[in-house]
């Protein structure tokens, strides 16, 4: 708090005792967690290593030499995935927000727009990403009206189209969760409908759905790997090529590791943000 004189309070013996107790039980829980994790990991490893096919699996999935060999190619491919992620992310932010706003417009004048947006969202949420990829990546270029673009570009567009629909739904839910009094308060100040959306409804709505949005981003992070089906030489395609030349699956494992490596920071961050938001919005910290 910003006001009030600092009152240095000496904790009572009772409180000190309680704190010590909480500390002891925290350590006990940590110990139990670490112990059970260790036991589980040991048992799982022993089970896998002692299966009859383990030697063969190890050779074809975890071959160190082949992994090292294929690593540079796959890393280069991953750069394409990261670029796709970047541009698709920007596209989704713009198009997804637009869809969410259009769907939240009121009044009969906007009925056709609203309906179009609704149909779009329903369609793209229903169709598997892979099919959208094929339709966009092979169908649209076949129309012959666009200049030739690389497979990676079409793949990025397809991913962006799908995720815009998901994100639009999440955003719309967030905007609807904003207390209607907030709109009234904003309009009462003389803010236009547009400014009310931009300065009051959307910022509050987005805040309510940040964990869900981050989840969508994490899934998009791995779904950009699907652009390989259009022939773009991304991490997965590079792994496929190496696997075909070495008759070994290790390159796929390398690609998987790299995908995990780029998504891990964000998944952890998502958990952290969600936990922090829960903490902020719940007064009863004990329950």
């Amino acid at each position, binding site marked *: 708090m910003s*006001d009030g004189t600092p009152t240095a309070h000496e904790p009572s013996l009772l409180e000190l005792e309680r704190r010590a107790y909480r500390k002891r039980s925290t350590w006990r829980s940590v110990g139990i967690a670490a112990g059970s994790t260790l036991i589980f990991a040991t048992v799982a490893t022993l089970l896998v290593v002692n299966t009859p096919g383990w030697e063969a699996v190890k050779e074809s999935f975890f071959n160190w030499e082949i992994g090292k060999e294929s690593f540079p190619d796959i890393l280069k491919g991953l750069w394409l995935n990261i670029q796709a992620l970047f541009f698709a992310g920007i596209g989704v932010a713009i198009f997804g927000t637009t869809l969410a706003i259009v769907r939240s417009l009121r009044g009969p004048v906007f009925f056709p727009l609203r309906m179009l947006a609704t149909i779009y969202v329903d369609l793209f949420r229903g169709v598997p990403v892979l099919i959208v990829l094929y339709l966009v990546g092979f169908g649209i270029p076949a129309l012959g009206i666009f200049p030739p673009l690389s497979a990676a570009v079409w793949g990025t567009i397809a991913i962006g189209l799908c995720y815009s629909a998901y994100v639009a739904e999440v955003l719309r839910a967030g905007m609807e969760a904003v207390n209607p*009094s907030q709109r009234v308060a*904003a*309009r009462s*100040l003389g*803010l236009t409908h547009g400014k009310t959306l931009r300065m009051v409804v959307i910022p*509050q709505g987005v805040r309510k759905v940040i964990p869900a949005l981050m989840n969508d981003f994490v899934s998009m992070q791995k779904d950009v790997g699907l652009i390989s089906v259009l022939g773009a030489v991304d991490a997965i395609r590079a792994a496929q090529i190496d696997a075909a030349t070495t008759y070994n699956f290790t390159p796929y494992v390398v690609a998987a590791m790299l995908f995990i490596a780029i998504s891990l920071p964000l998944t952890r961050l998502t958990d952290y943000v969600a936990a922090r938001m829960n903490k902020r919005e719940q007064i009863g910290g004990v329950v």
Partner: protein
Amino acid sequence: MSVLEVRDVWKAFGDNTVLKGVDLTLEEHDVVVLIGASGSGKSTLLRTINLIERIDDGQLILSGDDISDPGVDMDKVRARIGVVFQQFNLFPHMRVIDNVTLAARKVHGENPAAARERAAELLAKFGLGDKLRDYPDRLSGGQQQRVAIVRAILTNPELLLLDEITSALDPMLVGEVLDLVRGLKDTGSTILMATHEMAFAREVADRVVFMHGGRILEAGSPKDIFDNPQQPETREFLARVTHH
């Protein structure tokens, strides 16, 4: 010229007619207090004046402009009127200083630094000088309402509408908010407010208006209404709210 003229205003929600021909005039510096039972139409009247609800018939004139004209720019009209509701006034994602200066910056196009400076002065004047950087959820209910009032007056509105601004507050906090309103009266604001605080109405009002079933049944000086009510409904209402 009157600041506000409400002329024979009607408003229904479905087949529930809530305002049945309301007439009311506020001159400059008038403080008019609306009293009446729950559901008598006080909030609805305030909301129609602020163009949050559209009237079904009659006219609303703000400083000579017919604001019930369908061609009127409603955002411009609302920008000329300050409003504070019972609760949920402040935007939880903005700091106090940004809440207070939002309309000045984004509606009136005032220089942000100048707006902030004026806001800081006003907030300090009303005992909120140390809260500028706080988010609303860190403030007490009374502090929140005072911030909301400062926000409403920062742009010097022609008319201030206050709808039961203390009724969501702990009794301990009512006083500090009413003190602020007293201060506004002293600086000459034109105020139309609905309240259940009868003692405050008696003290601060130039005119008290008793609403009943969507009509203004009786209006007059606080002395007339509280000490010598003419209508049986007024007497009954006052008896009920004063003998709790």
